[in-house]
């Protein structure tokens, strides 16, 4: 479906699963919470090799995470950010 599940400004959590196949979610953001910075387009996602659900294209979102939330020893300022694009099926609304 081409309708976006999430919108800009929503708080989302990145899942921390470890599928046994090539996927594009770095471990340092798994389990972390951020905010949708941008709704991007539909793309063929790399796990399509095993998903086989007929529609491999999934929506991508840019997620913005404060660096201070990623690293307990972060050396920079509290307003420094990490922004990363994540496929929709790795995201869920955060509490």
């Amino acid at each position, binding site marked *: 479906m081409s309708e976006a599940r999430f919108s800009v400004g929503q708080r989302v959590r990145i899942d921390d699963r470890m599928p046994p196949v090539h996927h*594009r979610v770095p471990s340092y953001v798994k389990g972390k919470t951020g905010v949708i910075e941008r709704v*991007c387009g539909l793309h063929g996602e790399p796990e399509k090799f095993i998903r086989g659900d007929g529609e491999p294209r999934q929506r991508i979102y840019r997620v913005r995470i404060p660096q201070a939330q990623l690293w307990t020893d972060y050396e920079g300022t509290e307003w420094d950010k990490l*922004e990363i694009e994540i496929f929709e099926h790795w995201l869920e609304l955060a509490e």
Partner: protein
Amino acid sequence: MSEHHHDHDRTFQPDHPEPTTEAARIGLALRELLIEAGHYTVDEEREVISAMQGATPENGASIVARAWVDADYKVRLLNNGIDAIRELGFDLQPYEFTVMENTEDVHNVIVCTLCSCYPRALLGISPAWYKSGSYRARVVREPRSVLREFGVNLGDDVEIRVHDSTAELRYMVLPQRPAGTADWSEDELASLVTRDALIGTQRELDVARKVP
């Protein structure tokens, strides 16, 4: 999931400085087999290499210069990079091209931690350091230290945004236009823009570089 403290001590092994001969031989041997089997020709290879070498950071620089002189173009570029660069004859499809603007308050830097995704059509071949384990490991975690190694010293009044290019987006930084360039031509402006400024490992542009 609890944090494993030993992970903090894990060190990435440095990239081998010289090519390991056996793996390079595998590449060369593979090439010979593919050409021998007729999958491609040496002429095709030469053509592809020539095209790759033809892409340089001047492409990205020309986009920056246009955005500096044309405020409406800049808005289009920031909103839809793919369509905006097509106006100038560049194509990065199937990727989404995302331009991040530097300001007085914000400095942007790009990385691909998982491999080394890079907008080659606009910036040419990526530098060795961009592909290095050290850059990929550290710039997301200690960007200010890494930027200092490139000679970029940012005060606490500047926010750093690190962009990890993990999927189908390709990024470029739009550096700030230097002061004293108000009456310059687009070509002159473009001549100031370096590859490192487009990646984010350079912030200030040097007006002494102006050409002609």
